[in-house]
């Protein structure tokens, strides 16, 4: 009896909630105001707080909308102008003095740098993450994790300084001559070319170093959430530690790791200062890893300071910014979709 009554009142409540939801908006505001008038003092504070908090809650939403609006508004002229148009994305000539605003070399440069960085950082970072979560002796784990987290905190300008002072001369004076004189590697076309060290590979390496902490930390976290019972089941079938790590743990943690990789892709494309200092910034498409390269973030940093008085030039730079923004949004969405997909195919919820 009692339970029946209970369920009925619950149902009624649900129904009345539904009715409230379909009320018209003015009616709802009016209701809220009457509620507010009838309320005692504590409830009034409560209601005021609820409304007052709405603005901060949507702060990041507003900022994103503002960023999109302003970049769009600033980039519009170059896309509308006959000298520009959407074709600038595939046009490789960047020469503002002759009103030529092709941005293809910057896109190619960014993609190459990112590709090299990801190629180094993902395998290495995964190996490090597996070491941390599966093999690491307990006493070493905490210090190692701390160092890696501190690496993530080092500002990009400091990495840039190190790369500029140490890595670039090393590539120019040691690595390039060594690779080019060694008969095993000298014939490879990617290793040709004179270089002073300011090069594609320098950018790729410093970028990889900066991505590694993210890849390692997120992947190690993902690996550690894999339940121990899965590992034990694998050991109980006679698998070695490495087989278990590669075939069970890694595959179970794949959604998290995939998200880490995609997020670091986004960071790699958007990284500015360190890259700017070591890639040589020359307006050409690189053919070897020792050629200098110009990336999207660098051109904005280098030229916006004096280009902002020339409408088209400025607009072209903002167009590059808009492309960067769209890329980063795409990476964020892909990462989220990847996690959702991974959860589904692995039959996990939440």
């Amino acid at each position: 009896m009692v339970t029946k009554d209970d369920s009925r009142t619950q149902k009624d409540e649900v129904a009345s909630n539904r009715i409230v939801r379909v009320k018209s908006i003015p009616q709802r505001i009016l209701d809220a105001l009457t509620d507010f008038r009838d309320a005692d003092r504590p409830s009034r504070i409560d209601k005021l707080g609820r409304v007052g908090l709405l603005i901060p809650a949507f702060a990041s939403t507003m900022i994103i909308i503002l960023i999109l609006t302003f970049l769009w508004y600033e980039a519009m002229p170059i896309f509308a102008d006959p000298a520009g148009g959407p074709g600038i994305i595939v046009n490789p000539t960047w020469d503002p003095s002759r009103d030529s605003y092709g941005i293809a070399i910057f896109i190619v440069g960014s993609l190459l740098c990112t590709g090299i960085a990801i190629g180094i950082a993902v395998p290495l970072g995964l190996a490090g993450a597996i070491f941390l979560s599966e093999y690491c002796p307990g006493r070493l784990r905490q210090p190692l994790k701390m160092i890696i987290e501190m690496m993530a905190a080092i500002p990009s300008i400091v990495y840039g300084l190190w790369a500029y002072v140490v890595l670039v001369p090393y590539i120019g004076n040691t690595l390039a001559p060594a690779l080019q004189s060694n008969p095993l590697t000298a014939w490879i076309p990617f290793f040709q070319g004179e270089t002073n060290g300011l090069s594609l590979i320098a950018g790729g390496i410093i970028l990889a170093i900066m991505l590694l902490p993210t890849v390692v930390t997120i992947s190690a976290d993902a690996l550690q959430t894999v339940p121990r019972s899965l590992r034990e089941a694998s050991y109980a079938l006679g698998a070695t530690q490495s087989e278990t790590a590669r075939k069970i743990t890694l595959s179970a943690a794949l959604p998290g790791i995939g998200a880490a990789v995609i997020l670091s892709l986004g960071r790699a494309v958007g990284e500015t200062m360190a890259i700017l200092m070591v890639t040589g910034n020359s307006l050409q498409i690189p053919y070897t890893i020792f050629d200098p390269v110009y990336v999207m973030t660098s051109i904005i940093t280098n030229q916006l300071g004096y280009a902002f008085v020339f409408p088209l030039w400025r607009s072209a730079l903002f167009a590059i910014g808009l492309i960067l923004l769209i890329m980063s949004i795409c990476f964020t969405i892909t990462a989220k979709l990847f996690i959702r997909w991974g959860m589904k195919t692995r039959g996990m919820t939440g």
Partner: protein
Amino acid sequence: MNEWEHHIEVQELSTWFGKKQVLKRISCYFKDNTVTAIMGPSGCGKSTFLRTLNRLNDLIPSFRRKGIVRFRGEDIFSPGYSVYNLRKNIGMVFQRPNPFPMSVRDNITYGPKLHGVNDEDELDDLVESCLKKAALWDEVKDDLDQPAPNLSGGQQQRLCIARALSVDPPVLLMDEPVSALDPISAGKIEELVVQLKKDYTIIMVTHNVQQAFRVSDQAAFLYLGELVEFDKTSRIAEAPTDERTEAFITGRIG
């Protein structure tokens, strides 16, 4: 014919986690093609005992042990003894169903692939025969590629049994295999255990006295790390010699 009499023999086995002694000088052997139930209140070292038999406790840094466990006459703790072969020969089913987050098929083929079976037809046959032995074939044969975690709890546990059978171990360890399941699924698994006895030596840890009496041929009673009683199940059920066993069976300690 064989130099050894039983698949598994245990001699004077003591184990510790850190400073805490968990098992105290246990000696026994398990008859082939029987079901042995290991009973005892929680925390008495049942699971530790089971996990020592396939050296799964090696992974815990604070674990130490003394004494000998022989598998087919060989000391499993002797240096150079391949723990991977040991675990291939001693299958294990865990308390909670823990299928790998991959398809039903891949769950079964994982073990055989590790041990060098790569022929697709052979693997297909294996999948079918293992699932049939685990009485799961009829329920999943139409969709072997669905993710295993989508199965129901009871199905998952039978899949785990099939997975354990996939590398053809003569001995099967079961760590409270039904305690996380509903009564109907539990009943199915109990039936399955009785059937599997024909081909396998089964050692099953259980908290549930009635279940131990239903399925087992021999029973062991562990209390606070000591092997209190070890005999035919029917004899223990009728007349336990130790009063602690009697107290446990009648539900006074548990």
